[in-house]
Structure formats: structure tokens, C-alpha cells
């Protein structure tokens, strides 16, 4: 059965940043230099091809964009400046919007203005709400303990509520991702296989090892982008856990609760260095992957930066005994945190979940494909059947 070509799809993808994909004349250079491509998943050229031809269904269910970490090799060596790396990036953005059932992701990606507006509104609501609550029940001169302006107990509940909401969205989207990619209707993959491979999920989640494989050209060289990437990811997760579980001891003070705070400090360092480096990279366009920053990218880094800074600041202010300032900064901190959390399922930040999932699915598919190939003999045939 022939697949219908859809020349119009590119118009949609252009909003997600596929600007140069039509420059590609298919020399195959990119696929051959990509450190991640393998006999099962050949990209980026084939993804670019599907995009040029507008093979929507094929793209929707493709894992390849998640296997790409945008090391930039392909874009640097492209003879016709078709930016394969950027195309893969744009495909990830598009996929995020596809997985998202609310349609917010699509809206945000299509116009960064709308996203910014949403963020500001949520921030203001949060701010106003918190101040009202604070003045109503507490004293702005007190940071914690009795009569605290924002008592950790209630903030904890608030955090849990917001976090829960976020996780809800994310969970639904992740299921959609699974549905698209693994296509349970057509290729019914046994649960057993999922279970067999389940450990890969946390493994990829915590190591991001595939990213480390990028530019594996020069062995022994420490791969900075990966380190910072890992720093941010782990830092963020640690913080999330601390806030969601140990918020009370986190906010307790002025004395330092080492068993808890030490994690906080480590996480802060990771986040701070990571975000600063990212901001710098995007401003200075240091590497090919930072040449084209979309609005959403900026919002992402800036918010994270604000959160980190305010987070650290309110902690310090509290320790040095300036409760008033600490409270104000704390409010600002939460004003950034809330939109940030709510935005997560609809933004680049969803990578943190989607990537490990994709790796996990990819490994399962490899197993399946390998098995079938063993039967039929040709990996090509199998890949096509799939």
C-alpha cells in the first residue's frame, strides 16, 4: 500500500524550526557520521526524508529524534547546509506537541509570545495568591517556625498539588508517546519484554549515557556538554525530591541540616553552573546546536536560572537572618517555580522523561527487530515492515 506524500506538512514543521530541511539532496553524509545511528535506526537523513515528503504517520511514530543528542557532527559536515541536527531538534519539539493531549505545547511552540504570557500570568497569580495568604495568616518578618509568612507545611501541600498536576499531565503524555511509538495495536509486544528491559529506564534516566557517546570520536576527552546536561538533570531531580519530600527540613533554619542540605547544595551547584553555561552558550552561539535558539529555549533557560538564583538567595538570606528579604525572594522563587512546573509537560523540559522512555522503547524494538531479522534474514525488510 502506497503512502500518500503530504507536501504541506513542512509548513507545520517550520513553526518548530525545520527551516533548512529542503536543502538536503541526500548524499547520506550525516547518517554515516552520526555516532548514534546503528543498523536498526538510521538517521538523521531518513528522518529528513520523511519530513520533506511529509510522511506524518511515519514521523509521529519515529523514535529517531529522541536518539539524537544534537552533537552537531551532521550539521558541521553537511555539504549543502541543510542543518540535519536542527531538523532533529525541531522534530523533537513537534513530537512533544504531538504527545501533548492539551494542545498547549503546540500553542507555545508556535508562538513564544503566548508561552511567555502564560508564564507571566501564572507567575502573577501565584505571587498575588502567596502574598495574600502570607499576610492573612502570618508575619512577613518571620521566615519559619510559628507565624511564618509562608509556613513550609502549607507550601509543602501547595507544592505537592502543583507537582501532582504536572505529573498527571506528564503521565498522560508519556502514555500517548508509548502508544505512538510502540503502536500496541499493530506490533503487539509482549509485556515480558517490557519487564525484561525495565531497568534501562532508570539507567538512562540517571546516566544520560547516550549523550556521553556523542563526539565519542576522541576517546578519553571529558565531554563537557554532557556533564553539565547531567548536572542540570540530576540537580533538578534532587531538588524536586527534596522539595516534594523534605521541604520542612529544607526550609528549617537558621542552623544547617547537613543530611538534607548537602544534597541541596550539590544540586544547586549543578543547576547554577549548568544554567549559566547554557545561557552563555546560547548568547554567544558557541556551538552549532545553539545557533538557532527559539523563544521556548530562552524561556526555559531564563526561568531555570531565576529559580536557581532565587532559591539559593532565599536560603542564604534566611541563614544570615534577614527574614523579610528572604520571604520576598522566596515568593519570587515560587512565582518562577509554579509556571515552571506547570509548563514542564508542554516544553523541552519533558525531554527528561521522554528521552529515557525512548531509549527504553528503542532497546525493546531492537530486540524485536533483531529477532525478526534472524528469521527473515534482512534487517532492511524488517525495518520497512515496522
Amino acid at each position, binding site marked *: *500500500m502506497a*503512502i*500518500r*506524500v503530504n*507536501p504541506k506538512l*513542512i509548513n507545520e514543521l517550520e513553526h518548530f524550526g525545520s527551516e533548512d530541511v*529542503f536543502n538536503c*539532496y541526500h548524499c547520506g553524509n550525516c547518517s554515516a557520521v552520526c555516532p548514534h545511528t546503528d543498523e536498526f535506526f538510521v538517521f538523521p537523513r531518513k528522518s529528513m*526524508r520523511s519530513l520533506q515528503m511529509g510522511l506524518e504517520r511515519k514521523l509521529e511514530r519515529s523514535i529517531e529524534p529522541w536518539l539524537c543528542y544534537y552533537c552537531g557532527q551532521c550539521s558541521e559536515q553537511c555539504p*549543502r547546509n541543510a542543518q540535519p541536527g536542527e531538523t532533529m531538534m525541531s522534530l523533537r519539539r513537534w513530537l512533544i506537541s504531538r504527545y501533548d493531549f492539551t494542545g498547549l505545547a503546540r500553542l507555545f511552540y508556535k508562538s513564544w509570545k503566548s508561552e511567555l504570557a502564560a508564564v507571566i500570568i501564572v507567575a502573577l497569580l501565584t505571587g498575588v495568591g502567596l502574598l495574600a495568604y502570607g499576610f492573612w495568616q502570618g508575619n512577613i518578618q518571620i521566615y519559619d517556625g510559628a507565624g511564618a509568612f509562608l509556613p513550609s507545611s502549607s507550601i509543602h501541600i501547595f507544592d505537592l498539588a502543583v507537582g501532582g498536576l504536572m505529573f498527571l499531565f506528564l503521565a498522560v503524555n508519556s502514555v500517548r508517546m508509548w502508544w505512538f511509538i510502540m503502536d500496541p495495536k499493530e506490533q503487539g509486544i509482549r509485556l515480558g519484554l517490557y519487564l525484561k528491559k525495565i531497568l534501562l529506564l532508570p539507567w538512562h534516566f540517571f546516566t544520560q549515557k547516550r549523550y556521553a557517546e556523542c563526539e565519542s570520536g576522541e576517546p578519553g576527552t571529558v565531554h563537557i556538554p554532557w556533564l553539565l546536561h547531567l548536572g542540570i538533570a540530576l540537580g533538578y531531580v534532587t531538588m524536586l525530591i527534596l522539595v516534594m519530600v523534605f521541604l520542612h527540613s529544607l526550609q528549617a533554619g537558621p542552623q544547617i541540616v547537613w543530611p538534607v542540605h548537602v544534597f541541596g547544595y550539590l544540586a544547586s551547584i549543578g543547576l547554577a553552573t549548568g544554567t549559566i553555561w547554557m545561557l552563555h552558550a546560547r548568547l554567544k552561539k558557541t556551538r552549532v546546536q545553539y545557533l538557532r535558539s527559539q523563544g521556548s529555549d530562552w524561556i526555559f533557560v531564563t526561568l531555570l536560572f531565576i529559580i536557581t538564583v532565587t532559591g539559593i538567595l532565599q536560603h542564604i538570606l534566611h541563614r544570615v537572618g534577614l527574614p523579610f528579604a528572604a520571604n520576598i525572594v522566596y515568593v519570587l522563587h515560587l512565582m518562577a517555580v509554579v509556571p515552571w512546573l506547570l509548563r514542564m509537560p508542554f516544553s523541552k523540559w519533558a525531554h527528561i522523561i521522554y528521552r529515557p522512555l525512548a531509549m527504553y522503547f528503542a532497546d525493546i524494538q531492537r530486540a524485536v527487530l533483531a529477532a525478526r531479522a534472524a528469521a527473515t534474514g534482512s534487517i532492511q525488510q524488517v525495518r520497512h515492515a515496522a
Partner: protein
Amino acid sequence: MQNCRIGVYVCNCGTNIAHIVDAEAVKEAVSKLPDVTIARSYRYMCSNPGQEMIVKDIQELGLNRVVVAACSPRMHERTFRNACKTGGINPYLCEMANIREQCSWVHVADKLAATEKALALTNAAINRVRYHEPLDPLTAEMCPTTLVLGGGIAGLTAALELAMAGHPVYLVEKSDHLGGNLARVDLTAPYLDSARDLLTERLVRLRQNPNISVMLNSQLKDLTGFVGNYSATVATHNGHELPQEKTLHVGNVIVATGYKEFDASRITHYGYGKLPDVITSFEFEEMLRAGRIQLKSGRPPQYVAIIHCVGSRSKEFHAYCSRVCCMTALKYAHEIKSALPDCYVSDVYIDMHAFGKGHEDFYKKSSEVKTLFLMYGKNERPVIRKAGPGDDCQMLIEVDEKLSGERIEIPADMVILMVGMEARPDAGEVARLVNISADKDGWFIESHPKLDPVATTTDGIYIAGTCVAPKDIPDTVAQARAAAGRILAKIAKGKIEIEGVFAEVNEDLCSGCRMCNELCPYSAIVFDEVKKRSHVIPAACKACGACVAACPSGAIKGRHFTDQQIYAQIEGVLA
């Protein structure tokens, strides 16, 4: 044969010859041979003293034959022939023995044998030279008028080139207008320049030039004679009365009859002629010029598909590539995007032949305007079918797309078939008339595909443009000028020099079997119907000697390579 007085000169070539071949001994040996008046050996025969030695001996000793045993004739034959000339005897009365390249340099190990061989070769040369005859180059008149067949860009260019040099030209065009296929084109690839201006410029110059007489509705009926002196019969049709025949005296002929496009209806499943909006590139060209890119229904298309290699690069039709279609297709992609900004263009190709100046950049530009390039296999073919009621397009093109490995269907409202070039149906007829040959595809054959792309095996007949093979405009124009250039060179010389070496038929011996007529690659041998004898046109003969060897009655003599001379040489080397 008058009594021979032969002078033999053995060159030492410094030590090149002498250190292996005992030149003295050779000299001594040959000096004893009959008819050898004088034999000398000298350090460098090619040096001025060496040459003067020959001149002096001819004048003082009355030599009438000269043999030089030295290097390869390819190196110095000319030198010694000139020496003979200065000495006052016919240059062809000189013969060389190659005792360096083919003796002293290759038999270093065995001086005796080398000397023996040198002697044999010299001996052979002496034997041969006895039978040498004085030969004089012939000259024939070169008529400065040129006949140009075909009024396309090639014919126009060639005609102008000649006329602007001040020589008369007859431009014979079969149809009722000049301009050929180019007149049907709006813009040219890859720079989208105006084809019309290109043509207009030439047509105006043509009209302003008194040297050119244009003959429309005319065809060549007959061509006789040889280079410099052809007489051509041209028939002109005007209206219904019988064609008038005119005989023109011309020196050279340029064949620039061009091509015709492939008939798309021959490929049944492209549905050309059945599906309303499947059109050929030339039909689309008309739409462009009229400013109406629209479907039969009158509305502009939303999807246009361009299919390459229609009739080209295929097993059943033409094996060859038509060379210009790829660029034309890219041109269409641009033009469609210009006229209909919201239209989607798919370009279904096999290999993108963007080889010329500015072509690759043009290809890139067409990618930038989001032309969707889809690749199909050379021996496969897209299938066009009507779309269903639910589809937002009229037709669907199904094809195995090579770069994705998918079987796909491409939406299309209009399909443009890039029809290839093919030889004109009357190409064979023209070839026969001007007696040149055409290849299996009907393209005319060059005298040498690389080093002589515009000349033919018949002297004075030149070919240019797309009647030789598919070609784009710059290459056609270059070829047309090239052909004109050849002719200008000849005209500049005034007379045609014909080297003394050619074949001649002894009419008393000729049995009129005509075997040689077929044999001659240059059709230099013609049959005299009255005498029932064949005779050679020296101007056309290239002296290969094929006919000499083949003539059953030994009636043909290959000057300077006569049987006698060669037998004498054989005897000489074996003595």
C-alpha cells in the same frame, strides 16, 4: 624508371646510434650497393651542416634519391624532405630508415645484431626509394559560399559567423519560420534569461546582413561534388504549386537540422492524451508564455508534478540522456513558484544532471523554494492514475521512492512530462544526401567523437548542435561556431591543398566492380556511370590504402605506398 643516383646518409646521432650500431660499417656496406652514388656517415644529420651536406651532394653529384638512416621519420622526415627541396629535388624522393628508436635504443645488448638490422633497414630504404616518384600537392578551388541546413539557433549562429566574416551563406530551413525549437521557449536555464531576446538578436543581425540568403520551406534534394566544390539542389515549396528547384554552388555544408521531441503518447500509462492535465514540457512552455498556468478546467493547479526522463534513459525507448531536461524541469519549478506562490511542486527524477556552469546553484535554489525532489529507479516508471472523490487533487502518481525506500503516491493536479530529444525522422535521409553516417539513435556521427566533434568523415560536411546529440544552448552555439571556424580557416587559405599522397585508379585495369566505393570510409571513390569505372577524388582521399589492398584487379595505386615500393622494402629487410 630513370637511372637512380642515390645518396645515403647514416646519422650517428652523437653516440645515440653510433655507440651501438657501427655506422661506419653500415656506410661502407651500402656504398657498394647498385645506384648508390655516395654514402656518408655524420655526427648529426639533422644539424645544419648535416642538411647542407645533402643539399650540396644533390647539386654537385646530381643525386635524384636520398636515404637518411637516422631517427624515427616521425621526428625528422619533414626536415630531410625540406633539405631535398632546397637541394632541388622533389621532397618525396627521400626516405628514412629508423635506426635509432627502433634499433640502437632497443638492442643495446647486441651491437652486432643491431648493426646487421640497421643495415637491413637502410638497405630496405634504398630499395624502396628507387621506386619513389616525385609527387606534387594538388590544389583545388575553394568556393567561399556555405550551405547551412536548419534555421535553429545552431544554423543561425553558424550562418552569422560566416556572413559576418564576409562570406556568402545559404540558410535552408524546412519550416516556414526561423528559430527552430528555441522559438518555443520562454526563458533559458539556469539563469532564466530571455530566450526570445537571444533569438531576436540573431534574427535581426541576419536580416541586416546581405551575405545571407534565407530559403524557407526548403529542403536539400541532392548534393554532388567534393570539398570546396559541391553543387547542391534545393527545392522550395511555396503554397500549392510544384516546388521550385534551385542549384547552388557551395564549398562547404553545415548540417544543423536539430531534434524533435519524444512523443509522450508512446508511453501509454502516463495517460498523455487521455488524462486532461498531463502535458508535455513544450505545452507547459506555451502556458508560461501566455501567462496562464492553469488546468483544462481553467483553475490554477494546487499540486504540480514534473516527471523526468520521459522517453530518455529507458530500455524500451531511448537509452541515452537528453541532457537538458533536468535543468528545464528545475526552471519550471521556479517559474511555477513564481506565478503560483501557493502551489506545491514535486519533481520526480532519476539522477539530477546539474553539471554545467551555474547548474548546481540553480538546483540548490530550487530546493530552497521547497520543490519536493523524489527519486525513482532508472528501469522503473511512475504510474499516473485518477484520484478518488475524497482526494484534494486530480491525479495520484505512484512510484517506488528510492531515497526513502517507500512506495508512495504523489498528489497532482497537473503533470508535466519532460519529453526527451530524438533524432528527426528525416535524419537518415539527410545523412544519405550529404553522405555522412548516423548512429543507431539517428544522431549524426562525428569524424572523431573527441578531437573532431564537428567534422564528419566526408570532407567539407560539418555537423553542429542537437542533430549530433542532445545538447544545451551554450554547447550548441559553441559547436555551431566551431563548424563555422573550420570553414573560415579553409576559406582563408583560398585553395585546398591536397597532399601528394593519395590513391588513384588505373581505368584500364578497373573492372567496375565498385567494391572500393563501399570500402572507402571517406566516400572518396565515385563510380563513373558512363565509363563504368571508379575514380578517386584526391581531395577526399586520406590515403589509408584500404582500397588499394582490396581491389581485386589491382587497379588502384596508393601513391607513395605502392605495391612495388613495399615489395622492394620487404626484399630489402630480408636481404
